[in-house]
């Protein structure tokens, strides 16, 4: 199983491309898929850390972590794959409105005569039209993207990155955080609310990983302990989260790459073939209906009318 299948890549649509192009495209999408899985794992680990502080239970925390990781993976997959559009390619004109393709290939003129041909012949016409379309693809690589859409995606991913970065930092610096919390505990009088409820574990729920009941206090310890280093670590995690999105948006191998074009051609081809089939079988059904003898039954029709009247 190819990793790229995890993000919805279907290698079958690239059958007509040279093998080296297909291999390169598969390397790219397998790599992107792997980065998304890694990001999902990072989110999962971070979610587990947060849950440990809240629930003090490995079982619940791992469950929550897996759930969060899966949500982030799917959200990220959605952001990336919907970023693969045809803006800047001449194919967009046909992909946005498939009828343009029918008009250009005179397929409307087949209405009423398509029934004469076998399905395989119709399929051949659709493929021929697709090949013709492929041969005249024109790319404008400097075509701008919708800034609002980009900004929304960057904002959401940045937000996720900063949230999950803190979780990782808590894991990495857990010993130091615990020492800071221990120092705070020693500084507080035993009747202090924080001492009693935040820094002292319940008898049946010992602390795991972090010796506190509070996420906010843990953040505070992390923030005051790391200072500007926290910003640096946040930037590292932010960069990790942003790389797949930047690659999807900026790499010409992906944005106007062979897979995206072939996928669009595949979709256009599918609808073209089904359009022709629809024309054919519409004509067949229409002819059969026309030839069908439907005898008139006065009383039966009257009974129905009466029943409808009563119901009304």
């Amino acid at each position, binding site marked *: 199983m190819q990793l790229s299948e995890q993000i919805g890549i279907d290698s079958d649509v690239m059958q007509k491309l040279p093998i080296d192009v297909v291999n390169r495209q598969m390397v790219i999408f397998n790599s992107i898929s792997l980065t998304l899985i890694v990001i999902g794992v990072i989110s999962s680990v971070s979610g587990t850390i947060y849950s440990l502080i809240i629930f003090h239970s490995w079982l619940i925390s791992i469950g929550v972590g897996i759930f969060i990781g899966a949500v982030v993976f799917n959200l990220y997959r959605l952001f990336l794959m919907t970023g693969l559009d045809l803006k800047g390619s001449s194919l967009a004109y046909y992909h946005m409105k498939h009828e343009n393709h029918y008009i250009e290939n005179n397929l409307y003129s087949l209405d009423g005569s398509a029934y004469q041909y076998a399905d395989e012949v119709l399929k051949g016409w659709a493929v021929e039209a697709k090949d013709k379309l492929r041969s005249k693809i024109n790319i404008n690589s400097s075509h701008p993207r919708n800034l609002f859409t980009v900004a929304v995606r960057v904002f959401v991913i940045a937000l996720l990155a900063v949230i999950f970065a803190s979780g990782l930092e808590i894991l990495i*610096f857990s010993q*130091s955080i615990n020492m800071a919390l221990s*120092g*705070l505990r020693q500084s507080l009088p035993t009747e202090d609310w924080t001492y009693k409820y935040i820094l002292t574990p319940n008898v049946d729920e010992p602390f795991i990983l972090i010796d506190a009941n509070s996420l906010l206090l843990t953040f*505070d310890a992390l923030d*005051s302990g790391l200072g500007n280093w926290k910003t640096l670590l946040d930037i590292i995690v932010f960069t990790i989260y942003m790389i797949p999105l930047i690659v999807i948006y900026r*790499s010409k*191998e992906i944005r106007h790459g062979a897979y995206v074009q072939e996928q669009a051609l595949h979709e256009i081809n599918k609808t073209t073939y089904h359009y022709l089939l629809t024309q054919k079988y519409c004509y067949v059904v229409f002819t059969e209906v026309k030839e069908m003898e439907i005898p008139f039954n006065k009383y039966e029709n009257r009974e129905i009318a009466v029943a409808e009247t009563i119901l009304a």
Partner: protein
Amino acid sequence: MNNEKRYFNFSQLLFWVLIVLLIALPFLKLDEGLFNESELARRYIVTDSLNRIALEEKEELEQDENIQDSVSGIAIKRKWKWKSFDGKTYTLEFAIPQKAYDAARQNRIDLPPNENCWVGMYRHDRDGLKDMVDGYRNIIEEEKLNYRQAMQMVVSSAQNFNYTYITISQEPCGSGGRSSQDCKPKPFPYGCCDNVEPWAVYSPLEYAVNGTGDCDTKSLFAMAILKYLNLGFDAEMLMGDVEAGHHAMLGVSVPNPPFRNLSVKDLRTGKRYYAWECTVRDNSSELGAPVWQMFKNWEVVTIN
């Protein structure tokens, strides 16, 4: 390799390098170098529990009582009553030894010209203001004020007296559009004190006794009391230009101040001080109202 391939390959390389770095971090044992664990307790106590600091400070000051006794003789008693930002009215009764007042006045006059006069007065007046500082501390403890409320309570007490213009003999009251000499805090037209040599500023102790002062006297008094109380945040003097001319304000370095319009960064320490106007009694915002439109050439004057 063409540019298209290079772009993708480089981004992948960067991704995996960062992942490896992230995985390696726990094994690099960076905790000691990067993590400063002593900060948490200090910050927490500053923001959430003044009691401990107040108690520690009290013990420290009690050790100095013998010194206080030796300078006290006839005492000047004062009773201040004012409304703070939270709408509460506070009352502070305190006594200042006459000898301490005289010494503060003489110290102000004798300050060497090459020394920062604010530093000299701040250092000198500490002992003389002990009773007053204890009074502030008692209010904080009795009212269970957090550091922010305590800060507001102190600054509002400094703002409470009406503005009085302070000048020197070379630019006496009654000249240049100034009010005539009466040296009293009163509503507009404000009072004026001249012959306040050599820097046209009263010391914190003199302000505590007389209640007369303009921008630098009031700011210096508030700063001195905040520093003596040691509430856990930095208070310094700020000086610079506003549309009315050269001016002084109180600067406080507190976390997440709600009022950020006017602030000055100390380039030596990187700390940001929020400018607090001490000459007006405007409690409309938590950290003082932004009364100036122009705010230029401001710098932090460190007092210690």
